[in-house]
């Protein structure tokens, strides 16, 4: 009898879980339907005096900057980036993420724009940090 109880409870739980999953998925689907009106994902405020370049430039060109950094560090050993205002930075993903330390900083935009950069195949993703 008790076993019966348990199994029926179990079925109930599974059903509730499935229903809620369905609901959640549907919410996402609704969200997707109106992507055109969706605002840009918000990111935490950044002290722009410490940025290597204006945010508008970085928003459009960060991938080129990262590629250029990767190339010059790995291939030439040139590890120091000198910004337009003369401040110096180490060319590293860690430099960016040291300031942009919101875990979702990369992911918000990338999932919004549906791009899948391969950085985290090897580099530790901010989502995976303890």
């Amino acid at each position: 009898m008790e076993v019966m109880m348990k199994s029926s409870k179990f079925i109930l739980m599974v059903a509730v879980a499935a229903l809620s999953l369905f609901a959640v998925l549907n919410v996402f689907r609704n969200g997707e339907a109106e992507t055109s009106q969706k605002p840009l994902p918000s990111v935490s405020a950044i002290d722009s005096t410490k940025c290597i370049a204006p945010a508008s430039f970085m928003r459009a060109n960060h991938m080129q900057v990262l590629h250029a950094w990767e190339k010059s560090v790995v291939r030439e050993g040139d590890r120091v980036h000198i910004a337009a205002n003369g401040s110096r930075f180490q060319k590293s993903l860690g430099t960016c993420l040291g300031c942009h330390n919101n875990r979702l900083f990369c992911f918000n935009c990338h999932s919004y724009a549906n791009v899948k950069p391969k950085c985290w195949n090897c580099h530790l993703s901010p989502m995976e940090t303890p």
Partner: protein
Amino acid sequence: MMNEQRREFIKKTALGVFAGLGVASGLVPAFSLEKTALPVWDEKPVPGKIRWGMVIDTRQCKEGCQQCVTACHHEHNVPAFKNRKEEIRWIWKNSYKNVFPTATNSAVSKEIQNRSFLSLCNHCADSPCTQICPTGATFKRWDGIVEIDYHRCVGCRFCIPACPYGSLSFNWQDPRTAIVDPVTAYPTREQGVVEKCNFCSDRLVKGLLPACVDACPEQAFTFGDMNDPVSDIRVVLESNVTMQRKPELGTKPSVFYII
């Protein structure tokens, strides 16, 4: 000996550290990913100025000790695949027969036959692996280190038979599944690329000695710039008879062994 090596390093790098303080003003290491330690060499390096080299005093290498191997593999997130087919190694212990298969003195003592000899990438001056790589992903750095650019490697694996020392390993599957105790300070590799010892270029840039050198309890390693006539390694090379692996191939290895 250890302290002297460190001193040599500090001397060489003192200038860089002072310059690095300037860098610090623009850098807030608030978040610990791959930590952005300041580069010791602030300026763009001059190609050919430095040539890193290593001497291994095999007489000091103790049987059963795996500290250098463990330290290296841990520090660089080297996966620990157990089956021989997919094993990945940057540094490992081997027998005299396998490390020096072409050595003319084949009648060596029992003690030498039983001694362990460390195998690692020789960072050859004339490296066959960099020559065969179609994309230049395996390339010779400005400081003599043979480095693999994991961003560029296509995984054609021609470098593997090109290397006469078997120093390259291929990632037959996703290495992240087999990393036992991952460190956050160094990236992993990914499925489908070749990897090998990097002479700890990641540590050299922070002014540290390679992980294996640091980890050895017997101080069997000497590491330094072979182009610097007063460096430790030059002293050791000049005062000892050393051996290179398969010298007849003309690859000019940067790793030397004292037998």
